[in-house]
């Protein structure tokens, strides 16, 4: 591997990492404001900036909404300077290891998500994807399935009954919904005939039926609904937040965590919903594809053509990807604050008796349609 390739790979990885780490705290703020909107409150909108000696007496009221300062600066400082407490009966090694075990799979999953088409710099073509894997979808499933260990270990190592119950609930829930999630993905894989996420993205360019963008949702609407539901369940957020159901289990698997470690679990929560949003964008909503936009410019259906410089096209594509991902993050937050929590038997019924058969039907239907289409062509 020559140094230039290595440098490019490093830059891509750092770009993706920085992107993820910037969106995740922002999601916390969106969550606070979003919940406030749904509950008819104003939400985080002020910060006591006039108490800081530098600003004393000068600023009484800021002209813009400064609640975001609390979320992005004050909260992290508070969380990381708090006492880190390990309960006396806990397993010290696993208690410390659990947040890291939870964080790593969440971070590395994002690396296979393509965030743009090819970028050409100095004659060199760069795929805008941190890790180009032939088995992209399988890799995502593998990492998602490893994500459960952090939660289970946190629950067990805390030596607390509520935490243990949370951990057990999480493992049962995540295994159940992984199956529906995987089967929903099989429909997508059948449609595109590849496991490579970048190839799936490329196949979603252009228009169909005269005006609709050629996105996966129009081929696999059922798979989209199943994937969204199973994805929210996998990220353990309401209405599927039984592992941390606060009226029953205090805070579930991370009851005994404080300070920085607790904030890592919070971060993992947001990273997981970010992953779900990124996967939905990539598989069902064209990823970085923008309708009418191709590599050399805008192609209009009536034959019009507006050339755009290469770098502008790439910037538009990357931003389209980010905007789509943010939209699905927002959608998940809206779902979270709209629906009440399931009961445990309802959770299992939904996973095994509704989503699983639906996903199987989807696989059969997709295969049947593909078979008919193939035979008609020949």
């Amino acid at each position, binding site marked *: 591997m020559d140094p230039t390739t290595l440098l490019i790979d490093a830059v891509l990885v750092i770009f993706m990492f920085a992107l993820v780490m910037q969106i995740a705290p922002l999601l916390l703020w969106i969550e606070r404001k979003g919940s406030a909107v749904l509950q008819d409150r104003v939400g985080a909108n002020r910060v006591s900036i006039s108490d800081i000696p530098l600003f004393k007496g000068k600023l009484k009221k800021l002209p813009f909404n400064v609640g975001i300062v609390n979320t992005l600066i004050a909260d992290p400082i508070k969380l990381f300077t708090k006492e880190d407490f390990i309960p006396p009966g806990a397993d010290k090694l*696993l208690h410390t290891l659990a947040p890291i075990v939870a964080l790593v799979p969440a971070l590395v999953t994002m690396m296979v998500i393509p965030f743009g088409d090819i970028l050409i710099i100095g004659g060199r073509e760069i795929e805008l994807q941190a890790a180009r*894997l*032939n*088995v992209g979808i*399988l*890799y995502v*499933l*593998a990492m*998602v*399935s*490893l994500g*459960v*260990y952090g939660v*289970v*270990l946190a*629950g*067990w190592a805390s030596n607390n009954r509520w935490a*243990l119950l949370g*951990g*057990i609930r999480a*493992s*049962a829930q*995540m*295994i159940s919904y*992984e199956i529906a999630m995987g089967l929903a993905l099989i429909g997508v894989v059948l449609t595109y005939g590849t*496991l490579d996420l970048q190839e799936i993205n490329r196949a979603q360019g252009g228009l169909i039926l005269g005006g609709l963008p050629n996105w996966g949702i129009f081929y696999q609407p059922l798979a989209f609904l199943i994937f969204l539901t199973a994805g929210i369940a996998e990220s353990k957020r309401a209405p599927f937040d039984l592992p941390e159901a606060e009226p029953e289990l205090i805070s579930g698997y991370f009851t005994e965590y404080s300070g920085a470690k607790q904030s890592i679990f919070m971060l993992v929560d947001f990273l997981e919903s970010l992953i779900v949003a990124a996967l939905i964008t990539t598989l069902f909503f064209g990823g970085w594809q923008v309708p009418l936009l191709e590599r050399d410019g805008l192609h209009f259906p009536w034959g019009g053509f507006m050339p755009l410089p290469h770098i502008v096209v790439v910037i538009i594509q990357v931003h389209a990807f980010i905007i789509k991902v943010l939209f699905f993050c927002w959608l998940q937050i809206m779902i979270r604050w709209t629906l009440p929590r399931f009961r445990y038997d309802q959770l299992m019924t939904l996973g095994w008796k509704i989503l699983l058969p639906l996903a199987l039907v989807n696989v059969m239907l997709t295969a049947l349609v593909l078979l008919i289409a193939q035979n008609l062509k020949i």
Partner: protein
Amino acid sequence: MDLFTFIILAILLVGSAMAVVLHPSPVYSALSLVVMMSLLAVYFLFLNAHVVGALQIIVYAGAVMVLFLFVIMLLNLQTESRENQQSEMKTSATILCLVMVAELAFFLGKGGGKLELQTSQQELPAGFGTMQALSERLFTDFVLPFEITSVLLLVAAVGAVVLARRQA
């Protein structure tokens, strides 16, 4: 895979496999097994078998071991004290292990007495280890074993449901 990587991975793999057997706490044993399964997946990745590596993690580390942990936690198994272990079992296990080591040594010695890592020298066919290559073999040359395995799994699944029904 070069020899250095192989040795480092092998030490970790055998070490975690030993920990599965030797660690007194069931949770630590199960976790060592997870580490072992993941390291095995790393081996597959180094041998260009990407699909098998990913499946190894999805099936073993991601599903089977989570169920193991689930059962261990649900039954709240405690650390086993050394005195409870039966000495006959220990003796017979030691004898069986020695027999296996002797067998391995015999057959390895038959092959000329030296171990060679042949994977790096061999030319791999194009598309080796991809999903396409794997499924082509699976649905042409190995279609009968594949179908028999799927029937076997179906039987096991139906059996599990029947057993659960009877108790409920």
